[in-house]
């Protein structure tokens, strides 16, 4: 079964909080994420995963009259933003929660776990095979 793990990162004061970290903390965080991805890949559980560009350029788009795009943004008041996601193929929801908890505990300033909220959603699948 497939799950999407959405990592919501704190926004700080309008730009990325992570930009204010020390070099050492930043490197530890990057290393942690790379290791996690490698492990998921090695376990054959990683289906897809992307990091998203900074929220400064984010826009919300709706169709206006004639279907032409109406864009809205930027959103300086948002407290959290989607920083990236993984899609994992695992045996159980419990395993997906386990992975989410590991990602949540990614190290932040001073190496302390960030405990970021990770939203876990099951991905819809094809209909079952008929017997």
């Amino acid at each position, binding site marked *: 079964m497939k799950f999407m793990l959405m990592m919501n990162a704190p926004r700080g004061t309008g730009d990325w909080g992570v*930009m204010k970290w020390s070099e050492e903390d930043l490197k530890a965080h*990057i290393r942690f994420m*790379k290791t996690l991805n490698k492990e998921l890949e090695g376990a054959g559980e990683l289906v897809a995963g992307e*990091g998203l560009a*900074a929220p400064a350029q984010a826009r919300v788009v709706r169709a206006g009259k004639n279907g032409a795009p109406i864009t809205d943004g930027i959103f300086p008041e948002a407290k959290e933003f989607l920083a990236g996601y993984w899609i994992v193929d695992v045996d159980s929801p419990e395993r997906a929660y386990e992975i989410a908890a590991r990602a949540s505990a990614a190290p*932040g300033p001073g190496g302390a776990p960030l405990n970021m909220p990770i939203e876990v959603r099951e991905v819809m699948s094809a209909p079952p095979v008929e017997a």
Partner: protein
Amino acid sequence: MTPRSLDFAGESLLRELAPQVLGAVVRRFGDFSAAEDAVQEAMLAAAVQWPDEGMPDNPRGWLIQVAARRMTDHVRSEVARRRREALVIMQEPADQQVLPAPDSQAVMEQDDTLILLFMCCHNALTRPSAIALTLRAVGGLTTVEIANAFLVPEATMAQRISRAKQRIKSSGIPFSMPSESERTERLGSVLHVLYLIFNEGYTSSIGPRLHRSDLSNEAIRLTRAVRNLLPDDGEVAGLLALMLLTDARRPARTGPDGELIPLSAQDRALWDRDAISEGIALITDTLSRGSIGAYQLQAAIAAVHDEAERAEDTDWPQILALYGLLKRMSDNPMVTLNHAIAAAMVHGAPTGLRLLEALDADERLAGHHRLHAVRAHLFEMAGDRDAAIAHFRAAAERTTSIPERDYLATQAARLSAGAVSGSGTDAD
């Protein structure tokens, strides 16, 4: 029994034959789109059959024959379909549908690689379509391989290729050598597409890995093929030299964790000496012949960097002069940006920063992460740490490359560690 796969030599031969086989099939049947599919099928059949049954005596003839058989099936089913639709038009007398001899000497002499490149890189195609079609029709890569290289699903890539072929059909782009007057412009598109393929592999602006060696190698291989066909063209030689001299630094461009290492901090012992020698010989010979173009100048600049044993030995006055020439030749803001860096290295950071001001009014680059990154470096050189930190952060927020973002954020953090700290972190 596990199926064996083609060895490296077999694979290389197959890829080299791909455009020749496609050319022969298009000449015989005329329908580029269907012929391209048929050749792809023949290549897949070869990859499965050759390891078990052995390489045929005439691999090229074998591929043409298999592709031609597919084409005959295609024509028959087309005819049947049209008959069903009560549009009975017999295209060809039955005796001409018999399989022709696989290889005649006249066709053997013909290399259609260039004609195919002119077709696939035509301006009427979007660049992503042209790139995908070139890699398949001329490079002999499978749809799966191309999809993997661009990290998109196979179905998406298949559709991109099929739309490119429809576009060729609807635009009436012929399978023939462009006229003399069109050649220069059309060759420009070909070189641009090859350059984009190389860059895609070298910088890989998407995804977590910085470079995908296959695309760079493929671009170099195809550019070599063009050079063999047009040995006297200075820009073709310039582009090949530029690729070789840039690619030579690849082993030093990233650290053990995939992190980006800038030119000035690279371990130059890791550079590929053979590629550098070949690139320098090529560009030196080309520049001595006159008629200098933009690829040749960029190759010359790359050569100056590669010739420096240490970063501090770099001949910046020469690089500045070369960027000066390049700036006069093209209206590319990236050139202005690099010219400003060279000027800063020769005349000091304030000169470079002053030159950058011209770019703030240029819509193509204003607010671009590269402009922020260069400003950050120059402010650091000038000793203005706060401005450098602000621009490193702005650049990190704007880039869409993960390794580059990590590098820029790390630079900001490095400078902040030494700065007078007025605020704590607000990351929580």
